[in-house]
């Protein structure tokens, strides 16, 4: 490809031009994801920084303020930050062990016929719109909590945690199961030959060997939980308080954006973009931390 021979035929020349053009086209297409990312980050950060750079709001007050009253120009998102953190951690505490154990069960213990039936079913559920989990949450979980725990309202942190935990189950199970299945047979055989029991082999050899895949499963699950919006709106109650118990209703960051974006304008709208920046930072921190953890695991 280095130099075009002078005597090359017309057809060949065309061919080479086409080759060159197409490789440029492919490169451009590949760059579109970079352009999109830059546009998204650029727009969100630009709009989100306007209130602080131009309108003179304090960013610290924004992060630590407890009042969110747009019509009175009060924009504090501490309650929502706390709500998002609690809801995500709660969902993790329930969803990860259950999901992981289910994945281990399907990959290692379940009779082949059972696993063959359940695995695709769970996979299918990973694709179901999250809104439907919210519908179920509002119709069943909210009234259930209210009646059983005798609460004044069922829309609560607990309801959000349950809906998110259920929603992330299929994702965690599917990804973790694939990772566990990918561990070579020889690992298991070696461990069993050394006299370890099946359970010991699973927890001491197979799962550690599948660590990076399992981590990926958790990251994906958490990502789904922290970013989920519409299912959460239905069960959170969207109150503007810092939740102090599992039965308080709450408003996570995502819901704040979805609830108010429809009618917000001016600095109120920009503040929603600032809320987006905070959400964005959470995702970045999460990815960073988990990348660190899995890097450590690799060593």
């Amino acid at each position, binding site marked *: 490809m280095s130099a075009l021979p002078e005597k090359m035929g017309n057809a060949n020349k065309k061919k080479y031009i086409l080759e060159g053009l197409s490789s440029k086209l492919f490169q451009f297409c590949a760059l579109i994801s970079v352009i999109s990312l830059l546009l998204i980050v650029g727009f969100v950060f630009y709009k989100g920084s306007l209130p602080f750079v131009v309108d003179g709001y304090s960013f610290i007050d924004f992060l630590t303020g407890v009042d969110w009253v747009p019509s009175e120009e009060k924009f504090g998102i501490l309650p929502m930050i706390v709500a998002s953190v609690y809801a995500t951690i709660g969902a993790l505490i329930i969803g990860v062990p259950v999901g992981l154990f289910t994945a281990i069960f399907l990959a290692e213990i379940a009779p082949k016929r059972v696993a063959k039936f359940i695995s695709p079913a769970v996979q299918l559920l990973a694709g179901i719109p999250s809104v439907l989990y919210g519908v179920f949450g509002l119709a069943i979980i909210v009234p259930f909590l209210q009646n059983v725990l005798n609460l004044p309202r069922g829309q609560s942190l607990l309801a959000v945690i349950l809906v998110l935990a259920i929603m992330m189950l299929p994702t965690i199970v599917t990804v973790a199961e694939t990772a566990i299945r990918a561990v070579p047979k020889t690992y298991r055989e070696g461990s069993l030959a050394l006299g370890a029991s099946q359970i010991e082999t699973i927890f001491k050899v197979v799962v550690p060997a599948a660590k990076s895949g399992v981590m990926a499963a958790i990251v994906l699950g958490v990502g789904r939980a922290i970013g989920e919006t519409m299912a959460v709106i239905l069960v959170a109650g969207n109150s503007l308080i810092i939740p102090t118990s599992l039965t308080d209703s709450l408003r996570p960051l995502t819901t704040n954006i979805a*609830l108010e974006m429809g*009618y917000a304008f001016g600095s109120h709208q920009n503040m929603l973009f600032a809320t987006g920046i905070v959400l964005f930072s959470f995702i970045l921190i999460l990815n960073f931390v988990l990348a660190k953890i899995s890097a450590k695991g690799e060593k």
Partner: protein
Amino acid sequence: MTFIRKTAIGLLVLFTVSALSACNNSNNKTDSSNDRTNRISISGSTSVGPLAEKIADKYMDTNDVKIEINQIGSSAGITNATSGVSEIGMSSRDLKEEEKASGLVETIIAYDGIVVVTHPANKVKNLTMDQVKQIFTGEVSNWKELGGENLEIVVVSREDGSGSREAFQEIVGYSSGELIRNAIIASGNGNIKTTVAMNKHAVGFISFEYIDSSISTIDISGVKATAENVLQQKYSLSRPFLFAHKEDHLTTAGQQFIEYILSPEGQDIVEEVGAIRVK
């Protein structure tokens, strides 16, 4: 050079198939009127929305227009009408000075009442305006204090940009900052109604049009929430339904639609859905 031809043909087929299927869908189900001038886009209040939808439904039966209604809340509707995203904005509160200053013209298409609602099992059926204020600001937190059962009060309010909320707060006399913090925020009349209907503890406020048997309505100082009482100015929780538009954004089709709403035929529908005639 067959490969170029084949690539080209392949891409062409892909695109035409997709394009055709898109076209088919539109051809099958939409009217032949692709003329974009025959479209009226309306957005705004979820209180005005259902009324506007019903009138539009009837209007579109006999007129060759397509009316698009987005229920996104009063403030958003007014913003859209100002910026030209929508031809007409619906509002369930009066326009603010700065909104009028931006050149918006308002047309009152109906009046409407706001009613305080509770779960049907709630024994409290009558409140004074002051008690309503105390409930929504959190001074009173148990139904027992109002003559009801020993149940914690759960306040359900609309979101901050809602016209109903602004009108309600103005008449009752409290500000957004005073609203009890742990109030459940519901983004629409229907959402409030559903939340209240599902919860014995709850209290909220909705438009007259949304009243049905799933919730129980509260009288204010003994005055029932009815259209007559609003007309006779006995019941004070009421506000106008507005269409707001900018002169240069309004098409003839939009103008005719507004005229239709104000006609006796349109006003009959207003009454049908439980709102109050203009005249």
